[in-house]
């Protein structure tokens, strides 16, 4: 407990952490101000017009669906006069089955709409927090290993695993807390902007649960990035080890090896890339093309895609982070500290 309190103070006093927090606040401020600047509160007449547009769009969809059904029943000629396209399966154009129906907010121009604009903003926040977690995780232990801070601490607490564990635990807790606070502040600010200077739009339970899911997945990535940065910097005794490892991985494997695999015509190169699993976890699933799946020209219809699901994405990410952490602790336990 004492160790954790001391670590928390050290973490908070790090210039780099302070800088990153300032950057976060700045980026946040700029985004908020831009939205305030370009947005305005829609006037009642604007709302009416937008609502009308949404309604007519809705009507057109209903009409299309009805016509499609009528054509199927043979009440309409198979070849439509107006050149519209009707799918073979009319449920494809059934408005009742669509994920979302047109709403007035879709037709508001220059209006910040909470229900529509929050999701991409949340992705931006998560991306920043991932970067924050990774860099802070790496520099926190990297700088301490280099400046002799760890050695000083070990003279007081000669239990290496406890010392490293306290550092990692404190770091994770701090990143988690910061992420929570940043998200709440972020959403609250944009909610206020929507109320005062924009439009809230339809926010129902489904909207919130969707947003919550995006956020929860993002948060897991933030924490994993923190752990990975910390573990690589511990293994390499240096902050830059983590940066170098990621850069090297991206260039050598994601770019270089991908090219080589393409040239060699390996079936599913995406299956070997971490980015695919990251995408699968964040988006729920990721679809890729298998070039060797449809080589038989007489096979008729062939679906050459394959899917990575979020569980497999999560497992891969957890294995990576867990493996690196285990290695970091194992190495740190026995290493000569100078």
């Amino acid at each position, binding site marked *: 407990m004492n160790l954790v309190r001391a670590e928390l103070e050290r973490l908070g006093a790090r210039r780099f952490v302070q800088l990153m927090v300032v950057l976060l606040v700045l980026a946040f401020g700029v985004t908020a101000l831009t939205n305030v600047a370009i947005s305005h509160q829609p006037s009642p007449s604007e709302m009416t017009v937008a609502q009308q547009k949404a309604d007519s769009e809705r009507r057109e969809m209903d009409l299309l669906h009805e016509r499609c059904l009528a054509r199927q029943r043979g009440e309409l000629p198979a070849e439509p006069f107006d050149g519209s396209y009707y799918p073979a399966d009319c449920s494809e154009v059934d408005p009742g089955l669509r994920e979302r129906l047109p709403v007035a907010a879709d037709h508001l121009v220059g209006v910040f709409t909470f229900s529509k604009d929050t999701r991409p903003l949340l992705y931006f926040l998560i991306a920043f927090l991932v970067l924050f977690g990774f860099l802070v995780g790496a520099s926190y232990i990297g700088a301490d290993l280099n400046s*002799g801070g760890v050695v000083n601490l*070990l*003279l007081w607490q*000669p239990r290496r695993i406890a010392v490293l564990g306290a550092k990692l635990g404190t770091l994770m807790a701090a990143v988690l807390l910061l992420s929570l606070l940043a998200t709440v502040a972020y959403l609250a600010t944009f909610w206020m902007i929507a109320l005062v200077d924009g439009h809230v739009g339809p926010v129902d339970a489904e909207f919130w649960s969707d947003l919550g899911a995006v956020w929860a997945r993002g948060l897991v990535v933030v924490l994993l990035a923190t752990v990975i940065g910390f573990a690589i910097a511990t293994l390499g005794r240096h902050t830059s080890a983590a940066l170098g490892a990621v850069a090297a991985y991206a260039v050598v494997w994601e770019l270089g090896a991908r090219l080589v695999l393409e040239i060699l015509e390996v079936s599913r190169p995406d299956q070997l890339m971490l980015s695919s699993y990251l995408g699968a976890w964040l988006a729920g699933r990721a679809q890729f093309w298998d070039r060797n799946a449809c080589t038989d020209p007489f096979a008729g219809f062939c679906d050459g895609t394959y899917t990575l699901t979020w569980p497999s994405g999560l497992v891969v990410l957890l294995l990576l982070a867990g493996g690196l952490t285990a290695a970091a602790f194992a190495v740190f336990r*026995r290493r*000569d500290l*100078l």
Partner: protein
Amino acid sequence: MSAVIEIEGLRKTFHSLRRGRRVAVDGFDLLVEAGQVHGFLGPNGSGKTTTLRALLGLVRADDGRMRVLGEPAPDRLPRVAGRVGAIVESPQFFGNFTGHRTLRLLARAGGVPTSRIDEVLEQVGLRDRGHERVKGYSLGMKQRLAVASALLKSPELLILDEPANGLDPAGIREMRDLVRTLADSGVTVLLSSHILAEIQLICDHVTIISRGRRVAAGRVDEVLAGFDRHEVLVRVDEPDRAAELLRAAGLTVTEHPDHLVVHGVDDGATVSRTLGEQGAWVRELTPLRPDLESVFLELTGPAGHPAVPRQVDGSPESGADARDGEIDLDRRGVDA
């Protein structure tokens, strides 16, 4: 007396890809008993810091047995860490913290009451600068802060690796007084330093290490006595005549331009009596006692050619097997 530090047969070899193997400590023994102020001497690169690091669990020893305050090190170090204050080779501190805060964090990690902080800052002379950032400290001030961090725990055993590094003359004296005060209050001190006069003043025991091996150990006066050649310096008005008289009395004399050195005399009175009886009056009679510096240089380094800079870690080639060179105090005592 109980042993506070016991090291037997400590070995440590560093391996690096580029430079290969480097034997830093090669079967080293050290015994420090309770209440001693123990000097730990050796040339640059002889393995002092490595020994202390191994003892404190910072580097993994390849071989050897170590105990600190009776507990096997490094496995049981956590049990005694609260009673051992240590600085190893000019510790680095986080520059953005003030001295006070640095100590507070350590105190917190080690469960020491924070009231100790002001006491130790006062003790090392940093009372008025404790609330400044460490990066604004001078070398000597950082060193003082390091000593303060070691004192924070009110340790029973204090391990100081070159605490005088960077200290001004007054600082060195203050350090000496501090160590004395601590020793008087019962703290055992192991102190490495290159300032031999300093060691001679404050330490009652020494261990000398060369090339990773112990070459001398024991009470300071006994180690020095082991190197006492029983020589006296004599000044007289007629050195030639005096030399003859002394040789006639069976003594070995070396003549120097302005003085004589008489060898193998246990008692200066023999010289003054021999000369006085013949009317050659002695103007000065000084026993030539070895000091720690000459003993140290004799044990750890070749006299060397003045034109060839001595290289670090350069013990005499003949002493490659330094174990043979280790002085056995008892035997020397008998010889003398």
